[in-house]
């Protein structure tokens, strides 16, 4: 039987929901399944109403489902606020201590969680381990592999913690085996243990992609949902020769990145829209001095502080046009963790080859969600640092011009101190040698030189990935983190008799050569789907003149699209 089961863990911030989500994800990933985990949390450290949702499937899965099969309600708030998503047959596990709630539905399952936790682990706060045991018992998982994974994941926290949590899980597991009176047909039989697939967040994939692309320097200032990139890279710092320097603000971050890059290493920063606002001047500096720089902008709902812990695709227009004056850049928006990993390579290569800033757009949904991946292959990452003159390939006597004219717009770089040449980089309009100029002729030449790169970059931009039916009735067009939901929506629509295809754009700007777009027949109805309120990408797309968009599906409440959100909106539009 096909497995597609979702567990939601709801409760207060500080109750360890994220850890539970991660743990469940690892268990199922290592026992034959694919997992997608996303979080819906408030901007606070303790309390509030939050949930983490774990979707387990027997085939690759890249988005959440709106259908919850088991709700683990860790507090009263979750019981009230999350229960409405359940059908009568879906399970809710909650602590028997919560008063004022009674139900004769055996699927509403009170468990003496705290009590069992105290008995088994000696501490109330381990009641969430009891809940995990209970949920896994309901799902028909064998106990031993669960305990083995628990040992692995808790190992770092010491033997005592392992032991206590183990006992809590056993206790919750046992409680269900002996007390559950209902029937719950949804089972996830654990396959034999295999440590083959990967389980990671979009942020981790980006960080890893950067590290594998030769990142050496990172500077940043914490900002959700980008902070996890910085923290993960920092954790690599000691062993992997990456310097992560906490900046005093985002202005410092981008300028440090530019400095490091000028000195010759691959460098990047990450932030969210608000932090990127402060990097806009630095972005122009990179453009003018022709210094490579990779900037991840992990989006969250704006404007301004907005909804710090939630998701949106609202910054596309901004990053495409950020900074004054005219200079080349490129913008990408990967759709899942795997694409995020490989996109970083492309970002660094284009930054180096064209000596421009490159932006990679993420968002809270992509960055914070966990994905099971079949594999990531650093061997597939080819590092191309572009035109560089080193001491070996340099001609003497030295007469180096940093901005020497070239048809391609690209002048070879020298890293200061690596040859006997001296390098002048300048944010003013400059001569080929890099000195300030006031000349109209030189200015004109330099503008042309810089803008020449645009066509070079455009050639590197891939057309959208096409999925689903040929010659479709419906075409869903999207970009970035909606990728998984779009594909699943297309499958559902196709199953419902509407032949549906998806175009998913990762390479957004400069817009890929329109000649590369697949043919579309007149009968196809085109839906653009965006996690924002004004259809930013739809505007760009229409601007190309090749594609006419028939319907626009927007969502801007800070929450991600599930496939059914899209399907329902499509049906409503037809």
């Amino acid at each position, binding site marked *: 039987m096909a497995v597609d089961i979702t567990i939601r863990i709801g409760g207060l911030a500080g109750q360890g929901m994220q850890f539970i989500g991660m743990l469940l994800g690892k268990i199922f990933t290592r026992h034959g399944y694919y997992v997608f985990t996303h979080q819906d949390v408030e901007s606070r450290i303790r309390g509030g109403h939050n949930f983490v949702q774990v979707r387990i499937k027997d085939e690759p899965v890249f988005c959440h489902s709106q259908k919850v099969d088991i709700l683990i309600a860790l507090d009263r708030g979750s019981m009230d606020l999350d229960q409405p998503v359940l059908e009568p047959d879906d399970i809710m596990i909650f602590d028997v201590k919560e008063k004022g709630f009674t139900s004769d539905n055996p699927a509403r399952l009170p468990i003496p969680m705290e009590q069992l936790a105290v008995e088994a682990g000696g501490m109330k706060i381990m009641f969430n381990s009891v809940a995990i045991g209970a949920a896994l018992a309901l799902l028909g998982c064998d106990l031993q592999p669960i305990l083995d994974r628990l040992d692995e994941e808790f190992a770092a926290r010491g033997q005592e913690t392992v032991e206590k949590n183990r006992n809590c899980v056993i206790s919750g597991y046992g409680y269900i085996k002996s007390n559950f009176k209902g029937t719950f047909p949804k089972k996830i039989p654990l396959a034999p243990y295999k440590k083959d697939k990967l389980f990671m967040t979009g942020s981790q994939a980006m960080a890893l992609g950067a590290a594998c692309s030769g990142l050496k320097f990172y500077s940043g200032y914490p900002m959700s949902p980008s902070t996890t990139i910085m923290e993960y890279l920092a954790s690599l710092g000691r062993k992997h020769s990456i310097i992560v*320097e906490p900046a005093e603000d985002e202005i410092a971050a981008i300028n440090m990145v530019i*400095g490091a890059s000028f000195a010759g290493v691959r460098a990047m920063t990450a932030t969210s829209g608000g932090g990127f606002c402060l990097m806009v001047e630095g972005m122009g500096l990179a453009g003018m001095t022709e210094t490579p720089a990779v900037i991840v902008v992990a989006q969250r709902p704006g404007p301004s502080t907005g909804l710090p812990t939630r998701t949106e695709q609202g910054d596309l227009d901004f990053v495409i046009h950020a900074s004054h004056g005219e200079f080349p850049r490129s913008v990408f928006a990967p759709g899942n963790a795997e694409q995020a990993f490989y996109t970083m390579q492309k970002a660094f290569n284009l930054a180096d080859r064209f000596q421009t800033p490159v932006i990679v757009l993420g968002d809270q949904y992509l960055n914070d969600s966990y994905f099971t991946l079949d594999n990531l292959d650093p061997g597939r990452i080819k590092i191309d640092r572009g035109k560089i003159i080193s001491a070996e390939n340099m001609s003497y006597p030295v007469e180096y011009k940093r901005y020497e004219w070239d048809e391609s717009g690209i002048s070879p770089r020298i890293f*200061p101190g690596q040859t006997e040449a001296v390098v002048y980089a300048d944010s003013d309009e400059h001569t080929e040698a890099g000195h300030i100029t006031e000349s109209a002729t030189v200015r004109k030449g330099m503008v042309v030189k810089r803008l020449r790169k645009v066509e070079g970059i455009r050639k590197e931009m891939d057309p959208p990935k096409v999925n689903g039916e040929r010659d479709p009735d419906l075409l869903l067009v999207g970009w970035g983190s909606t990728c998984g939901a779009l594909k699943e929506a297309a499958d559902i629509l196709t199953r419902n008799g509407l032949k549906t295809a998806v175009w998913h754009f990762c390479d957004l700007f400069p817009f890929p050569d329109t000649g590369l777009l697949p043919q579309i027949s007149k009968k196809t109805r085109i839906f653009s789907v965006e996690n924002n309120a004004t259809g930013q990408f739809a505007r760009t797309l229409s601007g190309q003149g090749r594609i006419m968009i028939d319907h626009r599906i927007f969502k801007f409440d800070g929450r991600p699209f599930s496939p059914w959100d899209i399907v329902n909106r499509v049906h409503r539009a037809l």
Partner: protein
Amino acid sequence: MVNLDDFYSDDPVAWCPGCGNYSILEALKQAFVNSGRKPHEIVIVSGIGQASKMPHYLRCNAFNGLHGRTLPVATGIKLANHELTVLAEGGDGDGYTEGGNHFIHAMRRNIDITYLVHNNKVYGLTKGQASPTSDLGYVSGTTPMGSFSPPLNPLLLAISMDCTFVARGFSGEPVHLAGLILEGLQHRGFSFIDILQNCVSFNRVNTYQWYKKRVYDIKDDPSYDPRDMGMAFRKAQEWGEKIPIGIIYRNDRPSLDEKHPAIRNLPLVKQEIDRASLEGIIEFFR
């Protein structure tokens, strides 16, 4: 051996005749010569303003970046290649207004950079508006009723941040200044030198003569101990009839670039990517 000619640049100078910046340029070149460092081993990061045009007028690596943002760029360069001698250079506006936050935090980091601020007490390039070091009552385009705020004391600020090398020079004493810069270059950590600089076009009070009459070398007082923070704190407040120049405060603590284990043996820029270890971190996610 390097000599002054090695640092010669033929880029035409755009400063006003008589400007104090010329002597700072000469002092800087002399300090470079005395340091023994070659032009390609040195990088100057400058901001925007008259002072910030400096690196064009000598021969060494230069990054002429944004107004106020010299220090982060310089920090990035130093961390990427700590074998380079890295300087940051700009005006008082560049460093104390637009760049004030970076100034504080660069001192906190104690990154091994020498930071030269040409303090002419005005925004020169934008035509003489009040800067944060302008005197109370200074009349300018943006302060027609005179500046309402007292001048910021950069030395005091630096001492309060426990900056490990705090000095003051004067453009009219280029030999002394060259000596200070050399000491700054040799100091392992953040070396901050506030340079009193006359601006003939806009600052009609703090002229060359005005300073010449007032400055004295702090070394004249043999009892002065720049390692005594309390003493330094008092000395930094001296202004008026007598103005001390020289090293006001110094202290030793490890510089940021000495702390990063990643670059203990080799600068980042010389390190190859270690593919095997990267495979290792991917394994962690299985």
